[in-house]
């Protein structure tokens, strides 16, 4: 029994363009946000999203239903491309701290007042800056677990590492961020 994603892929492989549009509609936002978490820049995230989907479209034939879900496959393709880019150009370090505040275009419209919105924007900025200071492995683990909300098993499958390593990386990443936050508070207090 094929899932809805797999049916879409099958239709897409048979030349149905509307099925491909369905795939892009389903995963576009997810891939875009994943790219944004890694790059912290909307323009880079857009470029990455575009390239990821081009790669997915070109490699759609290589997807095998017995090797896992399409959801995992597309995330793996996206993650691999992002990491490749990272390794090639070291763009993330270069762009660290240059990100403009993303106060517009936010999904969360439940912000009660401007003060709360400003606090959230400040926290988001701290998190972005903190993530840039982490090593790539820790950053990736934090992004996948705490920002994307993926389960440990899925992260382990995606990164092709043991689950224990995933947990360890996540714990270390969180600890580093917590220490950064603590240091920041000390600096602000003094």
């Amino acid at each position, binding site marked *: 029994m094929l899932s809805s994603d797999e049916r879409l892929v099958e239709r897409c492989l048979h030349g149905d363009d509307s099925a491909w549009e369905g795939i*892009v509609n389903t995963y*576009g936002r997810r891939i875009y946000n994943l790219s944004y978490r890694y790059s912290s820049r909307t323009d880079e995230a857009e470029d990455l999203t575009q390239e990821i989907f081009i790669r997915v479209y070109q490699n759609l034939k290589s997807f095998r239903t017995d090797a896992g879900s399409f959801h995992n496959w597309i995330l793996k393709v996206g993650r691999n491309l992002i990491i490749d880019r990272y390794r090639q150009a070291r763009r993330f370090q270069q762009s660290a701290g240059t990100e403009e505040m993303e106060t517009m275009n936010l999904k969360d419209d439940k912000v009660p007042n401007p003060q709360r919105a400003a606090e959230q924007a400040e926290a988001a900025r701290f998190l972005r800056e903190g993530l840039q200071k982490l090593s790539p492995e820790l950053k990736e683990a934090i992004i996948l677990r705490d920002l994307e909300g993926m389960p440990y098993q899925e992260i382990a499958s995606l990164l092709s590492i043991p689950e224990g390593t995933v947990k360890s990386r996540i*714990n270390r990443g*969180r600890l580093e961020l917590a220490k950064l*936050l603590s240091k920041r508070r000390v600096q602000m207090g003094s």
Partner: protein
Amino acid sequence: MECPNIEGRLSEYAERSLPPEEMAQVAEHLHACSSCSTLLEEMRIILLTCKSFPSLDLDVNLLERILLRTSGRPRTRTWREKLNEYIVRPLLTPRFAVGAVLSLLFISLTVTLVRPRVPVVASLVSPTEWIHRLDRGVQGIYAEGLRAYDKKNEWQAQFTFLKNNVFHKLGFMIEQLDVPVQTNGKQKSGEPRQQQDKNPGQKSSMLLLPT
């Protein structure tokens, strides 16, 4: 447990995924160690911040670019987008605004010129008025028919009167003229004579009519 050991379990403790025994041990340490409990507090803040981290919406232009660069087919528009694209957006253009103003001017001018004739025009095109007209026409035809019938009756009465009068007068004249003829026994012609001979007492008015 020492602080480094606690730090290694802090993440799982925050997620409450440690076994109960270890949860108790970590909790005991945190109760006694202020630096570790502060670290846990900061970690919880980090987790909360991660949960409220902004999620961006995918721009439709990006979606369009992706589709054009992959399948080459443009994005399918929803009916709302079509409405916006073909109706709402054109309505908000300066060109439409100028057109609308000119149209309003034209309409107001036309109304000003036509208004005095509006009741006449309205009566010409009104269905009620058409029914009334039709009704009046039928009534007129019926009245003409009645008049013609009355005229015919009148003529008929006059003719009858005249006819009766003429016949009456003629009858009277005939009666006046139809008196017994006193003959002196002379026969004027053959046939009447024979009749007279046959019916000597019968009166013949025909013979008395003037020739």
